[in-house]
């Protein structure tokens, strides 16, 4: 398998162009704003409690700061991940480089995996940079590391799925904007599909609920690692990658 050279080239392309830096900077800036706002609110609430112990609630860092932060991050990722992956195949098709790439002795699967891992590397840099916030938090308050870890596992799984969907959309078109919008459309549909469940009764409602992205991520931030949720993301990722591979291979067969 010649995944390595493909991966290396893609990562280099992310980091020698402004793309990676702009995405990283914007992502960290916005999550930083959220962190600041949430943490300020938390500090204010703590102060009120300190002055008025009668108001004592279960105020803890995980539930009051990190969980809301993760919630907001998911929305930011929904908007940003399509931009991370839109280039991967669409640009190769537009510039024609795919003609050379696919006539090199490298399997379609290796091309796909190389590009996917490159997108995941950028994603890792994004959520890795975000570790700064819990680290800062740990300076002021006691952070529970186990729920933080499961929260991160949830983020990784969700990012893996978003990237796979984005890669699939990118393999369909030579227009990056189309690729981004299709990715966003698919992800948002599965985001809100759970809301429909409220109006659908019986097993169909349960199915819709189960298909929802939101339904499966909240548990991670609560510190729960549920196989049902892990399997949901893994399945979704594998399915999207499989469809992307089919879309690549389709070109070789359509005589």
């Amino acid at each position, binding site marked *: 398998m*010649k995944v*390595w*050279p*493909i991966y*290396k*080239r893609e990562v*280099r*392309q992310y980091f*020698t*162009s402004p793309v990676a830096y702009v995405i990283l900077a914007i992502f960290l800036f916005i999550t930083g704003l959220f962190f600041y706002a949430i943490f300020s609110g938390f500090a204010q609430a703590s102060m009120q409690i300190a002055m008025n112990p009668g108001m004592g609630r279960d105020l803890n860092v995980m539930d009051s700061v990190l969980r809301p932060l993760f919630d907001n991050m998911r929305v930011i990722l929904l908007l940003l991940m399509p931009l991370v992956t839109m280039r991967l195949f669409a640009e190769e098709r537009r*510039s*024609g*480089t*795919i*003609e*050379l790439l*696919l*006539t*090199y*002795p*490298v*399997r379609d699967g290796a091309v796909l995996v190389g590009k996917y891992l490159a997108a995941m590397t950028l994603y890792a840099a994004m959520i890795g940079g975000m570790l700064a916030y819990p680290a800062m938090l740990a300076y002021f308050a006691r952070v529970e590391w186990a729920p933080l870890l499961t929260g991160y596992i949830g983020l990784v799984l969700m990012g893996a799925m978003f990237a796979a969907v984005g890669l699939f959309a990118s393999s369909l078109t030579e227009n990056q904007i189309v690729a981004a919008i299709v990715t966003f459309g698919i992800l948002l549909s599965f985001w809100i599909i759970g809301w429909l469940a409220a109006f659908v009764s019986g097993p169909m409602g349960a199915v819709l609920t189960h298909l929802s992205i939101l339904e499966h991520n909240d548990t991670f931030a609560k510190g729960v690692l549920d196989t049902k949720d892990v399997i949901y993301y893994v399945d979704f990722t594998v399915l999207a990658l499989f469809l992307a591979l089919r879309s690549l291979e389709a*070109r*070789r*067969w*359509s*005589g």
Partner: protein
Amino acid sequence: MIEVQSLTKRYGPVTAIRDVSFAVAPGEIVGFLGPNGAGKSTTMRILACFIPASGGSARVAGYDVFRESMEVRKRIGYLPESVPLYSEMRVASYLDFVAEVKGVSRSTRKRRVADVMDRCLIADVQNRLIRNLSKGYRQRVGLAQAIVSDPHVLILDEPTIGLDPRQIAEIRSLIKSLAGEHTVILSTHILPEVSMVCSAVVIINRGAIVAQGPIDRLVEQFFPTSRVQVEVAGPRGAILEGMRAIQGVVRVEDGASVGDGAGRYVVESARGRDVRGEIFLLAAQQKWGLLELRQVGMTLEEVFIRIVAGEESEAATPATDAVPPDPAPVADEAAP
């Protein structure tokens, strides 16, 4: 090395090529000729395993391009017409990437890349971004990526397009130097290039092969006569009559007047029969002023024009996308 059997490719209702068959022997350089839109690129894309054929089969280096595409791809170097390169990469690291993907081992890769950069005369731009290169350099980087893995078969779609005359000469000698160890199929519009570089040609027009074979044999086949161009001053009627009477002359073409009572004629005689001496004697005897007497070699270009033009006049609708080949005043390069 390349065997193509009744290859057909349809894009929806449009048939790009139909029933194309030809073969290329190992070590040969074959020119693939045809007007724009004739199906050259389509054929080459199929040979390079980029698109599948609708019918027929093709084998490259002994492997079927459809069923054993990975084996074929290991053994070819391909340069598409548009020269698609990663514009954000630098030349040397791009070639290193291609070499790695093509399976050149780590230990030989550095030397191999340096070697092809020297051969393709791009060593001086190796640290430049491909985006900033001129068309000529891009073309040569494209050629370099095709040969970087030292493949058995090279498929080059218009390799010298967009180069300046000096670069063209350099690339031609590079391609020529590949003959023997590599089998090359190259498409081009520039007919003298084919005469200079290739040992045989395949001519394709409107999706079908119209002629193929060694260049000199094709020329002979289409122009069975030798031609002599004569410029002579004298009475037109007598000159025509006198030259037609020479033994072996098949036809005398009455050309334009060139002033001062002189006219230009083209005398065709059976191939191999040289009538120049007799024309001279005739002129001397009749006291006509002989201004020029010159043998005209028939070129591939004329063969090409005749074939393509002939095809077009046969068809009710002329192909609008057929362009005349580049004019090239080379008359004596037909027979290599």
